[in-house]
């Protein structure tokens, strides 16, 4: 266990060891059960104050973090960029330092700029958790995808996972690639050439240009949301065109040699990157992903709140009866 402690912040899966990732997934297991209890709450983080600092719109991730925090008995405050001093031009660090002056313990941050979470983590004492920063990472989404795959297959090592869609702009893709490859899965990316990052193969992934081939190859598809605002950027000609060439449809899946497990980080554009029949089909784990999101975030909050990085050594002992 030694060396598996998480340190102060969670900014990306790139910076975690395979052992640290496994520690979070293993810790998430018992937290699933907490959400099934009659009183869905444990006192583990009683007295901790957590600020959810969201500079970008988010429904699911913010709510998921908030549930995780409340189920651990932390006190939470939500700050949205709109209506706060941020819209008056206050810098990120000033905002955070002011919050810290009110004696907070943790910040969950979503920000449009890649690297914002790390930048903040280096400048404040509180624990910082990245809830999505620009095109960089969305580590808790990556972790919940890993947990959902592990639930379904019993393992990550050796799995073939194809990430489909707008990989270029996707922090979800990047966190998945880091997490999956660190735990020994094979990863391929599939999507329009205009939405593939240059040098993506340097991350240890294969490029499969055609969705039909990706479906032949994979055990699971992680279908990214086509960010509709990309249309304006001229990355794809039209939504209909995208659906025709890259949409995951029942017809395409019918030709797969095996049943594929379907993941999607949400929110979905039904009829664009994914057909409704597929999203609601028997092999879709899209709602289990949402359930696991709360458990994974509880695990991350719990592990980071423990603080001292040398706790791993003490863990075996303290059986104080």
């Amino acid at each position, binding site marked *: *266990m030694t060396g*598996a*402690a998480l340190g102060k912040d969670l900014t990306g899966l790139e910076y975690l060891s395979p052992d640290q990732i496994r*520690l979070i997934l*293993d*810790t998430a*297991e*018992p*937290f699933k*059960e*907490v959400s099934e*209890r*009659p*009183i869905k*709450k*444990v*006192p*583990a*983080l009683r007295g901790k104050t957590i600020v959810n600092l969201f500079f970008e719109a988010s429904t699911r991730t913010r709510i998921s973090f908030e549930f995780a925090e409340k189920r*651990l008995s932390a006190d939470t405050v939500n700050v949205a960029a709109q209506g706060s001093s941020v819209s008056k031009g206050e810098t990120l660090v000033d905002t955070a330092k002011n919050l810290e002056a009110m004696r907070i313990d943790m910040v969950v941050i979503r920000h449009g700029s890649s690297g914002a979470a790390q930048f903040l983590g280096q400048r404040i004492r509180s624990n910082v958790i990245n809830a999505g920063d620009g095109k960089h990472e969305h580590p808790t989404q990556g972790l919940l995808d890993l947990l959902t795959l592990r639930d379904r297959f019993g393992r990550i090592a050796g799995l073939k996972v194809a990430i489909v869609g707008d990989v270029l702009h996707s922090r979800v893709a990047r966190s998945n690639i880091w997490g999956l490859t660190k735990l020994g899965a094979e990863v391929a990316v599939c999507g329009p050439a205009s939405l593939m990052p240059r040098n993506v193969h340097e991350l240890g992934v294969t490029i499969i240009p055609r969705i039909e081939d990706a479906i032949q190859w994979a055990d699971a598809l992680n279908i990214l949301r086509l960010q509709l605002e990309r249309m304006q950027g001229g990355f794809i000609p039209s939504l209909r065109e995208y659906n025709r060439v890259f949409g995951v449809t029942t017809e395409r899946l019918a030709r797969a040699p095996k049943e594929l497990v379907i993941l999607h980080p949400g929110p979905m554009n039904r009829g664009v990157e994914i057909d409704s029949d597929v999203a609601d089909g028997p092999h879709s784990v899209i709602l289990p992903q949402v359930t696991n999101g709360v458990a994974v975030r509880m695990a991350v909050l*719990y*592990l980071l*709140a*423990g*603080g*001292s990085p*040398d*706790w*791993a050594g*003490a*863990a075996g002992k*303290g059986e*104080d*009866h």
Partner: protein
Amino acid sequence: MPIRTQLLDDRAIGRALARMASEIVERCGGTESLVLVGIQRRGVELAARLQRLIERAEGSRVPVGKLDITLYRDDLQTVGPRPVVGETSLPDLDGRAVVIVDDVLYTGRTVRAALDECADFGRPRRILLCVLVDRGGRELPIQADIIGSRAATVPGDRVDVFVAELDGRDAVELVRGEPK
């Protein structure tokens, strides 16, 4: 050099558990509304054994639950999070006579956490505490109702309980003089 002394061997543990099983039934006036709740980890094994002993004597199988108190501890700040939190699965506790089963009673902090956690699962009619070894040294006003054995210890001592299911043998041992 730390000195290791055996307090109970397998036969002594067997006799203690048999007596504890009958005491549980006696104290609760039968097995009607009885629920055994073992505290992770060795309390879980002991609760399962008590269940079998009660079944043998009374002919009825009382429900058994598992409780992991990790998330109810009061020392997250000082010792940090436990890497592995065990399973919690409890039967209906409302109106039941709940017997909390643990291997060793020492400071009482584990039991305090277990009482808080049970309260979040239901409202038992009463709660009893049953331990294999009471080693003294309480830091909270908590006492056991049913005790397998008492051990005189000093701070710094450690009481190790071994159960066949997890450790391959049954024994209770006192370890004294271990370097801090």
